[in-house]
C-alpha cells in the first residue's frame, strides 16, 4: 500500500512538472521547477514559521490520501479493483483533497477552492462515464479481469476491433482531462497560503493525479495480478508504469492548457468531455 502511494505521489509530481513545463514553453509563465520549489518553500514555512494545518485540513487530507492510496493500489493489483471500489476510492481522493483545500481566509485562494469544487462536480459525470467505458470495453467490472484480458490478448491499444481501441483511447484521454479538472487547487500560488496546509493539498493532488493515471494505464497496458514486494522494479510492470508516466505528462499538459482558459470555459470543457466520453461509449458499443 505504501509503495502504491509513493508511486502515485511520484507520478503526481511528474504531472505537476509537466504542467510547469507546458506553462513555461507555451505561455512563458513561471519556472519549470516550481512544483519542487513550492514544495520546499512549504516545508520551510511549516518548520521555521510553524505555519500549521487545521484539524479539518488534516482530516480531509487523510481521507484524500486514503482514496488516492486505495485507487492506486487497486490499479496495480495490490487491492481489490472492482469498478465501484475504484470509483469510490477516486471520489474519496478528490473529495478529501477539496475538503483539505476548502479552508482559507485569503480571498483569492478561497475563491479558487470554491471554483475548483464546482469544476470537480461539473466534470464528474464525464469522468465516471470515461471510467465506465474502460470497464465496458473489456466487458469486465474488475481491474483484475482487465489485467487478465491483457495477459491473454495483448495491449489494450492494439487489441481489435479498431473502433473499440479508438473508443478506449478516447475514453482514457477524456478520463485524464477530467482527472486534471477534478484536482484540488494548489495553495502556494497565493501569498500567505503556503505552509502545512499547502503541503497537504499538494500531496492530495499528487496522489490523486498518480492514482488517476495508474487506473488509466491499467485499461491501456494491463499489469500483473501477482505482485512481488518490489513491484515497481518488476520488468513485467514496466509497460504499465511507462504508460502511466506518459499519462501523467498528458494530465499535466492538459491541466496547464485548462488553467490558461477562463473559469467558465473550463466548466464548458467539462461538458465537452462528457460528450466525448459518450462518443467513446458509442464507439465501444458499436465495436
Amino acid at each position, binding site marked *: 500500500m505504501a509503495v502504491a502511494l509513493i508511486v502515485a505521489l511520484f507520478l503526481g509530481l511528474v504531472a505537476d512538472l509537466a504542467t510547469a513545463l507546458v506553462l513555461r514553453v507555451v505561455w512563458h509563465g513561471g519556472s519549470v521547477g516550481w512544483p519542487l520549489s513550492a514544495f520546499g518553500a512549504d516545508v520551510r514555512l511549516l518548520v521555521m514559521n510553524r505555519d500549521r*494545518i487545521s484539524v479539518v485540513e488534516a482530516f480531509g487530507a*487523510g*481521507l484524500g*490520501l486514503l482514496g488516492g492510496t486505495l485507487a492506486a493500489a487497486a490499479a496495480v493489483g495490490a487491492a*481489490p479493483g472492482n469498478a465501484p471500489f475504484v470509483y469510490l476510492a477516486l471520489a*474519496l481522493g478528490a473529495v478529501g483533497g477539496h475538503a483539505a483545500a476548502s479552508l482559507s481566509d485569503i480571498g483569492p485562494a478561497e475563491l479558487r477552492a470554491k471554483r475548483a*469544487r464546482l469544476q470537480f*462536480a461539473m466534470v464528474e459525470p464525464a469522468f465516471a462515464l470515461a471510467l465506465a467505458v474502460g470497464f465496458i470495453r473489456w466487458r469486465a467490472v474488475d481491474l483484475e479481469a482487465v489485467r487478465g484480458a491483457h495477459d491473454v490478448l495483448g495491449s489494450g491499444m492494439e487489441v481489435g476491433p479498431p473502433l473499440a481501441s479508438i473508443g478506449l483511447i478516447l475514453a482514457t484521454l477524456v478520463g485524464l482531462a477530467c482527472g486534471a479538472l477534478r484536482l484540488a487547487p494548489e495553495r502556494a500560488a497565493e501569498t500567505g497560503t503556503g505552509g502545512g496546509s499547502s503541503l497537504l493539498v499538494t500531496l492530495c493532488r499528487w496522489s490523486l493525479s498518480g492514482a488517476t493515471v495508474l487506473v488509466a494505464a491499467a485499461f491501456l497496458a494491463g499489469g500483473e495480478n501477482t505482485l512481488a514486494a518490489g513491484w515497481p522494479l518488476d520488468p513485467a510492470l514496466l509497460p504499465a508504469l511507462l504508460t502511466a508516466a506518459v499519462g501523467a505528462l498528458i494530465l499535466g499538459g492538459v491541466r496547464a492548457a485548462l488553467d490558461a482558459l477562463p473559469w467558465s470555459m473550463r466548466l464548458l470543457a467539462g461538458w465537452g468531455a462528457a460528450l466525448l466520453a459518450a462518443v467513446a461509449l458509442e464507439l465501444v458499443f458499436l465495436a
Partner: protein
Amino acid sequence: MTIPDASLLQVAAVGPAVAGVVWLGLLRWPWIRRLAAGAVWLAAHAAAWSVFWRLYGAETVGWRGLEPGLLQASVVPVAEIGVLLALIRADALRGRAAVGAVVGLTVSMSAVVVGAYSTSLVGQALFLPVPTLAAAAASLTGSGWRRMPGLGGLAAADLVAVLGFAVLFDRSGSSTVTSAGGLGLGSALLLLSAAAKVGAVPGFATWRLTASNGPGALITAALRGQGVALCALAGPIVAGVEDSIPLAAAAVVATMIAGGSGLLAGRAHTSLTAICGAAGAVLFLAIGLGGSVGLRAFLLLFPAFLLASGVALLVGWPGEEEELAGRRSRIRRWVGGAALGVAAASLAGLPPAGGFPGTWLTFDLATARGTIEPLYVILTGAAALGLVAAVVGAIPLLRAVRPGWIPALVGAAGAGMLLYVGSLPVRVGGGWWLRVEDGLNAPRLLSFVGAPSLPPVAGKVLLAAAMASAVPVGLVILLGRGFRDAGGTFAGPIPRRNPGPSRGGVRHLARKLLARSERLYVGMAAAMLIELAAVWSIVQLVIRAGRRGFL
C-alpha cells in the same frame, strides 16, 4: 426473572413519551430534568433492545395488537438512538423552543414505536399523524415569524400513507399486515409516504422541515425513524423482494436533485438537508433493486442512515443562532468537525464509514444487474454522482460546526460507532441479516456458508491504506507541532455574487405573493386541511375495519 411481554412492550412504547413528560415536569431544574428524563428514556430504550433480543433469539413477543417482527423491532432501537442525539441538541435550545422540540420528539418517538410494533394496518394508521402534529407544534414554539415549513408535505405524506393502508386493507380483506407478494398500489403509496418522511423527496415534507431554522427541524429525527419503519413495512414485508425499475429510477433522480441542492446550498441547513436526503434516497434504490441482495443492502443501510443523520443533526445543525466564527472552543469544534465529517462520509457511502458497506452492496448489485439491463449501470453512475455532489456540498459544513461540549463528545461517540459498523459490518450484523431474511422468507444468499456476500475488501487492506495515508499527515502535524485554529462561517460550495435588490418581474411578484400568503397563513391553513383529511381518512378506515370485526 423474565419480564412479561405486555410490560416490555408497554415500557418500550410509552417510555419515550413519559420521558418527555418528566422532562417537562422538571423544567426548572436543568440537570435534574436531564437525569430523570434520561433515566426514563434509557429504560424505554432498554425495553426496545430487550424486545429485539427476544425476537433475535427466535422467541415471540406480543401483547394485543403489538406483535413486531424482527425487522420492525430492529428499526425501533436504532431510530431511538437517532432521536436521542436530536434530543441532546434540543435540550440546548432556549425557552419554548426547547420545550417544543423535546416534547415533540419524545411523543413522536412513542408513536413511531407503536406504529412499528403494530401488526394491524389500522393501528399503524392511528399513530401515523402524531410526528407531523408534533413537528407543527414544535415549529410554532420557535422565535420570530410563525411558520410551519414542510407541514403541507408532511400532511400530504400522512394522507398518502393512510390511502396506502386503505388499499392494502381492501385488497387483503384483513386489517392485519400480510405479504402482498409484489409491489402494488398500496405498497407504492406507502413507499411514497415513507420517502417524504425520510426526507428523500427534494423540497417536500421532511426535506423542507430539515432546512428550516426552527426547533421543528429536530423532529425530523423521529420522522426519519417513522419513514424507515414505513419503508421496511411497504418494501420487504408487504411487497416482498421483487425489483422495481420505476422505484429505483425515482430514487436515483432524488439522489441527483439532492446532490445538486447540496452544490447550490448557500446555508448550512440546506447543505445538511441535501446530504441526508441523498442518503435517504439510496435506501429506496436498494429496495427498488430488489432481491435478497437488495434487501441485505437495505438492512446494511438503514441503521447507518439513522445514526449518521442523528449525528449530523446533533453536531451540524446550526439552529437559529447567528453564525459567528470562533465562538466556541477549538477542541469542541475539532471534535465536532471530525464527527460531522464521519457522519457526512457515512451518509454519502464513503469508506470506511457506516454507510459504505450498504452503498457498496447497492452499487455492486446495480452493476451486476447492469450486465443484463444496461439502464441499471446508468442508474448506478447517476446515484454515485448525486452522492458525490452532496458530499462536496457538505464540505463547507465542517468548518462551520460549533457544538457544545456534550454534543461534540456524544457526536464523536456516534462517529466512532459509525466507523466500527463500517469497518466490521459482518461482525456487527451477520447473524441479524440472516434471521431477518429468514423471517421474511427471502431467498437465501450463499446458503452453503450462510455468510453475507460482502465486497472482497479485507479489513487489513483498508488498515494498511489508512496507515500509509496517515504517515504524511502525521509528519505534517509533527513538523508544525500541533494544529492551527481555522473556524469560520458556512460558505457555500459555489462562488456567488450578492443578490442585488429585486426590481420587479415574475420573481419579485412571486416573492411578494409568497410573503402575503404567509401573512394570511394560507399555507398553514391548507396544510391543516390536508392533515384533517388524513385524520378523516383514518377515522373512515377504523369504521370500515370495525365493520369487519377489527374492534
